[in-house]
């Protein structure tokens, strides 16, 4: 399973590097979301600083939808889907590999957005480890949930419009817990921030486990 996951992740990352969809679409989109929400909130530095963690995670969520749509599109052709089913690759490995490739893109998005909120909103993180742990757990959860729901919508003609409707409500806990954990990381309130990790951790674990178990049957019905 792990060998297959590495193979699929390598293939998806290579395809992304070559198509540059993440570079030219996902990353600019994430920054645009951040800037536009900043305009909507107005120029007050206090309001921007307090809203920054929420805006950051909202931009990450929207970017997750884009990255997932792209991940699904890679395998969208009937021939490619058949090829993957005939390849002998463990479906759990396909799931983990695709989730890893989406996670790598989300890490790039978060690095850029992190720099964005520091530069644009003058945010200074007090407790870096809390922000990092929250980001890692949220990234795993978002990529696993995104790829799982991507597989659910893969065979449908309306998948591109359906996917945001499926994914965004499901990942709302990540938006809430990620924002609160980051707010705590900014203010240095470690105890309250750490409690939100208890949502992000299980979310990631559950979606990883469900994805490993269900990706195969979903691949068959797509």
């Amino acid at each position, binding site marked *: 399973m792990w060998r297959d996951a590495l193979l699929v992740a390598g293939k998806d990352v290579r395809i992304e590097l070559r198509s540059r969809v993440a570079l030219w679409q996902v990353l600019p989109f994430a920054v645009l979301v951040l800037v536009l929400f900043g305009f909507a909130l107005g120029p007050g530095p206090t309001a921007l600083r307090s809203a920054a963690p929420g805006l950051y995670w909202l931009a990450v969520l929207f970017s997750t939808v884009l990255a997932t749509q792209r991940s699904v599109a890679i395998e969208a052709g009937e*021939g490619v889907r058949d090829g993957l089913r005939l390849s002998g690759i463990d479906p759990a490995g396909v799931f983990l590999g695709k989730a890893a490739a989406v996670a790598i893109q989300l890490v790039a998005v978060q690095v850029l957005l992190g720099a964005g909120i520091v530069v644009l909103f003058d945010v200074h993180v007090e407790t870096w480890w809390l922000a990092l742990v929250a980001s890692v757990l949220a990234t795993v959860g978002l990529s696993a949930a995104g790829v799982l729901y991507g597989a659910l919508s893969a065979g449908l003609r309306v998948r591109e419009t359906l996917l945001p409707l499926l994914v965004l409500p499901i990942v709302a806990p990540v938006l809430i817990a990620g924002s609160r954990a980051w707010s705590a990381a900014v203010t240095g309130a470690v105890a309250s921030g750490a409690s939100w990790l208890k949502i992000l951790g299980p979310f990631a674990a559950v979606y990883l486990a469900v994805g490993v178990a269900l990706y195969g049957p979903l691949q068959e019905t797509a």
Partner: protein
Amino acid sequence: MHLAVHFRSAVALTGRFPALSGVDLDVAAGEVVAVLGANGAGKTSLLRACAGLVAVTSGEAVVLGCDLRSDRTVVRRRVGLLGHDPSLYDELTALENVRFAVRAAGLGTDRVGSALDRMGLAGRLRRTPVARMSAGQRRRTALAVLVARAPELWLLDEPHAGLDADARAVVGSLVEEAAESGAAVVLTSHEPELAVPLADRVAVMSGGRIAELRSGCRGTVAPEGVLVALPRDDADVA
């Protein structure tokens, strides 16, 4: 005689529509069977059923000694399917596509270069992304995947389609080599003049079943009149 394919009264559905309506077919190891028939006769569905991609809902369906209903995943690893829509990633090069397919099958990559050479994909062409290739070059790349994987059962859906004369000749020799190595080959075609000379037997499909089985003329010169007239369209069958 070791059977690569054993179908008895095999019925398969695609959605609510019948794809196969009681197929009886045996294909021995080392044998080449050409499947002819009009559009909608069930040729592609037969190949997809053999590959375990279309579920057989009733009847017997045994491929490479495995029951398709219980061991579908095992069968899939051992067959090679060339479909209408090649199983290729557009952004990857021919070399990367074949290498990925071979690694996915758990095989070494030592045969990748020779497989690409065999299909005439040499030099810069093998480093060209598939998206920039012509339809014929894409089909050659898909065939190179099969050559590198060397499956026990080759399922070729209109393998000559979109290929130039040279590549068509290579397809013929590939089929012959696969059969000589002990693999079974089932190929569909709308061009009897290309398919019949490759085949030991010719199955004519109509209405989702085998309407007629004839002798092919593999290794011999096709006698006058052996090329089959295709039946009319079967619009009611997937």
